[in-house]
């Protein structure tokens, strides 16, 4: 919600509102997060992220001003909700009949004849502009002004576009497939879960209740006779309608947050008053239908309970001071405060709600941190976690790397009702499918990773079968390149399996196709309890992550004869000095000595952070290395 500083000032005596930076701090630590502050149309505009439980009362300038008034203990000199509202004169020039089954429970209307639709005065245009609203005309702007001023959405119809002599407003469920053209030109198709405001005489839909008005009774430049609507709509139905139509408006955002019923009367009065001022005309009067629901109930709370929950010394005096600041009315019965929140606050139902108010206004920063006392009982060891850790320790020590993969896959026994994508609409029923795919992608990156023979991976995670969720462990190994691939993979897996069987004291299933997977829950049924968590390593302290290149790498091999006394390091130094910073890895893969000479062979991996390397570019680097090697005494490129 964008809040104009200049607008906020209108609620206070001149000069009493602190600077915007102070307000920002104040609201952040006692009420709402501030998204940002910017200068627009000659004033500071604060973007306030109102919390969901406070949306009913605080999505308005008045709401935020009320908050500031409480937090700073400065009184509001101009509070539009302070006095009870009086909707007089009544009129029978509007008829209202509500469908008791539809989402509208309380409806106020006013009729003004003889208005002159035109441009809004500068002050109003500027205020709306500051908070990102476009000025349309004095009538529409008046409704927007009231919306952002006190939080009550209202709407204006052209009274002459109703059938019959006396405009008759009604509500009803929309019919499936019924269409309505909305302000701004979009046509939407409705269904029976939605409510429409109708011209009862012709049964024509005039607006989607709580969401947006239609074009049928739109106010245009020629309009002179208007009906102002200020009603209350069911929050859940409004939200669902708005979601179904994919239309979220400033009005729907407020109705779905359950703005107080009582606000509807303030809304119609404020808009009527403002239109009469800006567009002239004669008030015919007001009409209402339906009723407001019961207002806030009394809640009992004590200072000792507040102190005990917050861990701070909250006295009766602190409580009373905060109640007064918040305009909560209260009586005291012994040490119990019986507190009633003002009607616009919809979030105060239980003592803890009041304690939250005490905590935030008092200041969470004044709560001194305390250490928990020692617990009365020693925590038990979580068997599942302990064994998973034991398995991790065993596998990591065997050189197997742990992975975490997605539970959402394209196949499985359990299907989601709603999914992000068709390749993620099932829950995995095993771990091996994911790990096998990962072996494929990992194999492509092996030289970059400095792996030239084996990739071995494991995952411990939950899988889902019809009616069951099980924790599985899966080890996947691939030995690449050479012959007898299957045999070497199998022997690697068998070695891991035997090690695990020894540690777990149980028999595991045989590996199948590069993977060894089993149900840990079943194994745990017979496994003995552990009396402590295994002592397993964590990431080393010095590690910090570095982004890796998204471009392909290039692998080149180089082998060189050198005098027997030449070390691997000196060969490596020649390579690294002349390989440019595109060299990512330099791994020696072969060394032997013959006839007084040693042969060293290296894999060189080149990769750029910024581009795809070309053969030419790497070729130039390789030539440079070869030239340098050839220039060394007794060195010969193989």
């Amino acid at each position, binding site marked *: 919600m964008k809040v104009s500083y200049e607008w906020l000032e209108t609620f206070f005596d001149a000069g009493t509102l602190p600077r915007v930076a102070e307000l920002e701090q104040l609201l952040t*630590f*006692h009420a*709402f*997060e501030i998204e940002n502050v910017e200068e627009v149309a000659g004033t500071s505009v604060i973007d306030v992220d109102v919390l969901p*439980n*406070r949306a009913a009362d605080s999505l308005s300038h008045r709401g935020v001003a009320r908050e500031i008034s409480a937090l700073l203990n400065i009184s509001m000199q101009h509070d539009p909700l302070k006095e009870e509202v009086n909707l007089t004169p009544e009129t029978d020039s509007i008829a209202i009949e509500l469908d008791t089954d539809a989402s509208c429970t309380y409806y106020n209307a006013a009729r003004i004849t003889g208005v002159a639709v035109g441009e809004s005065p500068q002050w109003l245009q500027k205020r709306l502009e500051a908070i990102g609203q476009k000025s349309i005309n004095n009538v529409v702007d008046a409704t927007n002004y009231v919306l952002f001023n006190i939080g009550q959405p209202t709407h204006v119809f052209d009274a002459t576009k109703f059938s019959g002599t006396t405009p008759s407003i009604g509500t009803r469920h929309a019919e499936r497939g019924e269409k309505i053209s909305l302000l701004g030109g979009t046509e939407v198709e409705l269904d029976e879960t939605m409510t429409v405001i109708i011209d009862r005489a012709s049964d024509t839909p005039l607006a989607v209740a709580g969401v947006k008005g239609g074009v049928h009774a739109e106010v245009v430049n020629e309009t002179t006779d208007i009906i102002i609507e200020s009603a209350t709509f069911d929050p*859940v139905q409004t*939200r669902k309608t708005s979601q179904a139509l994919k239309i979220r408006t400033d009005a729907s955002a407020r109705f779905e947050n359950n703005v107080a019923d009582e606000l509807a009367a303030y809304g119609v009065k404020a808009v009527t008053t403002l239109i009469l001022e800006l567009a002239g005309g004669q008030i015919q009067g007001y009409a209402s239908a339906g009723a407001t629901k019961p207002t806030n109930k009394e809640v009992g709370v004590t200072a000792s309970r507040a102190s*005990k*929950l*917050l*861990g701070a010394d909250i006295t009766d005096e602190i409580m009373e001071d905060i109640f007064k600041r918040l305009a909560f009315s209260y009586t005291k019965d012994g040490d119990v405060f019986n507190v009633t929140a003002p009607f616009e606050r919809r979030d105060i139902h239980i003592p*803890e709600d009041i*304690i*939250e108010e005490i*905590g935030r206004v008092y200041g*969470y920063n004044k*709560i001194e*941190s*305390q*250490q*928990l006392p020692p*617990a009365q009982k020693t*925590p*038990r*060891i*979580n068997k599942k976690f302990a064994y998973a*850790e034991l398995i991790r320790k065993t596998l*990591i020590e065997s050189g197997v*790397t742990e992975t975490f*993969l*997605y539970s*959402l896959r394209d196949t499985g026994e*359990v299907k*989601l009702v709603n*999914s*992000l994508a068709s390749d993620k609409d099932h*829950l995995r029923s095993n771990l091996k499918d994911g*790990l096998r795919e*990962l072996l494929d992608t*990992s194999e492509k*990156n092996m030289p970059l*990773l*400095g*792996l*030239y*023979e*084996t*990739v071995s991976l494991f995952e411990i995670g*939950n899988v889902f079968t019809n009616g069951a*969720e099980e924790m599985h462990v899966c080890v996947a190994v691939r030995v690449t390149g050479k012959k007898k691939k299957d045999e070497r993979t199998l022997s690697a897996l068998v070695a891991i399996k035997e090690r695990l069987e020894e540690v777990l004291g149980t028999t595991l299933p045989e590996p199948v196709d590069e993977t060894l997977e089993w149900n840990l829950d079943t194994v745990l049924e017979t496994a003995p309890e552990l009396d402590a968590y295994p002592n*397993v*390593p*964590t*990431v080393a302290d010095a*590690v*910090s*992550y570095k982004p*890796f290149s998204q471009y392909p790498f290039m692998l080149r091999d180089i082998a060189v004869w050198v005098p027997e006394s030449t070390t691997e390091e000196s060969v490596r130094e020649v390579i690294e000095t002349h390989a440019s910073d595109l060299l990512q890895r330099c791994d020696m*893969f072969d060394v032997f000595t013959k006839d007084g000479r040693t042969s060293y062979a290296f894999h060189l991996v080149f990769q750029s952070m910024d581009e795809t390397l070309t053969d030419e570019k790497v070729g130039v680097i390789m030539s440079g290395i070869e030239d340098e090697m050839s220039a060394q005494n007794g060195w010969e490129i193989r």
Partner: protein
Amino acid sequence: MTAKEKEHYIHPLTSAIREIVSIFSELDFEVASGPELETEHYNFDALNVAKDHPARDMQDTFWVDDNHVLRTHDTSVTARKLEENNGEMRFVSCGKAYRNEATDMTHEAQFYQVDAFAVGKDITLAHLKGTLETFFGKFLGGSVEVRFRPGFFPFVEPGVEVDMRLTGDTVPARLKGKWIEILGAGMLHPNVLKAGGIDPEEYQGWAFGGGIERLCMLKWGIDDVRLFHSGDLRFIQQFKSSK
């Protein structure tokens, strides 16, 4: 085997979970876990999330049938533990949760959460502050300041947003002296205690929950949350083990 093939790596999530468990074990917390495919009851009802709360909508939550969801938070473990136990208790859980939302560098459809709660006759918001100071100090190193701002989560009342700030020589420059929004917390809502069969007149307690990937990103300077679940060895093999 090449030298690289003999090196050992620890996935940052595993390391973080291990460190979290270790810190909270020292504070007498028991490790808890629960199902990822949860009933609507433990994911929402028992946690005071109203029947018509937007979080229950299809757009935010993965549904499997009319009353089962992929849990949207690890807090459902809290609901289960409250029900299984009575009186004083302390639990920490680190588990996978799911949100039906598009992924980008800071959002994932699947992520890990740490949830911890402590219940007793005199467990206060002040204890929460102290516990979080200890936790962040040990997990991230350095001196820690913790501050609370008003926050809203249906399962707690009062609810707070927790920020922390690290100072000291061992703190990486990218974190030093900056306030960082880190998790949500508060005092367990009486309805949540009641749903767990605990008398809110006699017992009270705090709870907090936050993303483990986020903690890892801060700790190791990781810039993309999607890396955690990608299985990409170019990522995992940057995290060498401490021994």
